């Protein structure tokens, strides 16, 4: 019964350790995916003095970073266009990619359709263009040109965007349209790249792009990277603390139980010594029992720990996790080490049992 209690303690300890390590191992990836909702984590800028680079360079990027999960890559060309007689900074982009890279952009109305001469306006710009009833701008046509003396084209406003940033002062249309109006074929001012990667992987992505596409200078979005780093750092400390506390509690529980077992079996130990058991025999027997306890408890715990981690991952991130053999082995080894250390004091008590107790009839 006492050994069953000790086994339960080891199994619970191993479950929590294995679960925490599995969650911790998987969290950077899961969290990285969550962070992708807060925008791109890499900006691709022109490397030379030029204000733009050739958009064809972006076609090489997916192949270069094929080992990482690419969420999206949205190109942007920024030009000052004359809209309703006012010069407005206008962005040309790929709206399909934009929705992947910046899912936090909120839109009233709809995104423009390709080839339909449609445009989005920022919420601040909408107020300038339609000061009294802002939303009435949706569906209206506005005249757009590259400047004085150039042709005016009519574009339909399909929506108003809110980002909480300076984009609210801009207008956005399809990249092809803007390149045509500005007469800058294939030109791109920058691209926003969103990739599922931790700090190390992001650096590798950055280096790979820098090394293979000289025209592009990648630059990590520091705010996102720092936030991610901070959250992961705090999580790491939390996991470490919980693991240490659980290990200490398991150690105390196993050690106390083993001491009770030794006290209970004192007469039996004395008998074994009277029959000729050496101290080495006693050490092997109790350490063996401790290690067996650790191995079985660790094995049970690593299985239950995986189920625990799976439950946490599904509940928190809505994603399943894969079983890790290395985490299972680590849990079993840690359980063995804990039970080994926990057995030291009980073993010491056992080897100090005087065989003569069997003669005294105690």
């Amino acid at each position: 019964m006492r050994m069953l209690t000790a086994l339960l303690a080891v199994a619970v300890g191993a479950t929590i350790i294995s679960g925490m390590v599995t969650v911790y191992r998987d969290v950077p990836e899961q969290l990285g995916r969550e962070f992708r909702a807060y925008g791109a984590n890499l900006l691709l800028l022109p490397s030379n003095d030029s204000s733009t680079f050739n958009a064809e360079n972006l076609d090489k990027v997916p192949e270069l970073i094929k080992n990482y999960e690419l969420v999206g890559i949205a190109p942007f060309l920024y030009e000052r266009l004359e809209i309703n007689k006012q010069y407005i900074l206008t962005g040309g982009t790929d709206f399909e990619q934009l929705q992947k890279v910046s899912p936090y952009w909120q839109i009233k109305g709809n995104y423009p359709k390709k080839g339909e001469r449609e445009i989005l306006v920022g919420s601040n710009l909408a107020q300038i263009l339609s000061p009294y009833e802002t939303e009435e701008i949706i569906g209206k046509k506005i005249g757009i040109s590259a400047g004085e003396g150039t042709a005016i084209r009519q574009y339909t406003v399909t929506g108003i965007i809110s980002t909480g940033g300076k984009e609210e002062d801009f207008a956005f249309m399809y990249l092809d349209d803007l390149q045509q109006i500005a007469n800058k074929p294939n030109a791109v001012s920058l691209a926003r790249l969103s990739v599922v990667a931790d700090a190390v992987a992001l650096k590798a992505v950055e280096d790979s792009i820098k090394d293979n596409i000289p025209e592009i200078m990648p630059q990590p979005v520091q705010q996102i990277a720092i936030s991610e780093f901070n959250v992961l750092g705090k999580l790491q400390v939390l996991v470490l603390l919980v693991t240490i506390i659980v290990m200490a509690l398991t150690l105390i529980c196993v050690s106390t139980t083993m001491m009770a077992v030794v006290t209970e079996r004192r007469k039996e130990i004395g008998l074994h010594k009277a029959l000729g058991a050496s101290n080495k025999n006693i050490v092997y027997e109790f350490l063996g029992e401790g290690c067996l306890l650790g191995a079985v408890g660790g094995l049970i715990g690593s299985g239950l720990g995986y189920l625990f981690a799976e439950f946490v991952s599904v509940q928190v991130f809505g994603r399943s996790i894969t079983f890790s053999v290395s985490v299972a082995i680590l849990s079993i080894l840690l359980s063995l080490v804990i039970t080994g250390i926990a057995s030291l004091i009980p073993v010491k008590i056992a080897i100090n049992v005087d065989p003569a107790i069997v003669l005294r009839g105690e």
Partner: protein
Amino acid sequence: MALLELKDVSMIYNGKVKALENINLTVSKGEWLAIMGPSGSGKTTLMNIIGCMDHATSGEINLDGISLMDVNNEELTSVRRDKIGMVFQQFHLVPYLTALENVMVAQYYHSIPDADEALAALKRVGLEDRASHLPSQLSGGEQQRVCIARALINYPVLILADEPTGNLDEANQNLVMKIFHQLHDEGHTIITVTHSPDVGKEAEHCVVIEHGHIKNAEVS
């Protein structure tokens, strides 16, 4: 020829409590000696020393050519394992092991457990049909016979019995003493420690110990 020889053996606890003082004793091969005495006389201390479970404070002790005063604790364990078979008043059988397994425990620490040999030892004490029984399923006399079988399994040079009939009724006492007589007749060297004159007189020789001294030695 002396199998066991004690010369001026003393045991003093904490430098002042004299449990044994200048004990001189010789036990020949094949001899059956009874050590008698009242409670607190020093019988258990002497038994611990002869049974290689404790070192005497001073004197000389020789068992089968080995000077017990010159060996360390580890070697003393080895002498106990190889030379002595112990029979206890309270039997001390492991409750969750069968009679056969209890006999094999002693084999395990000595050499290699051998079920056939252990069964033969049980047969010798008339318990071959009780080999698979747990101690709780055996009578006191049967448990003591298992204890004797366990003491014999490693072919010891000395059988040391501590109050071997102390927990038995008369019928079982007679049965156990009969086995001791058989062992003595076969040439085994036996030392029984007892406070019972009836058990003491069964032995070939008897010494009485009082206040840590051998009071007298007599031949029955």
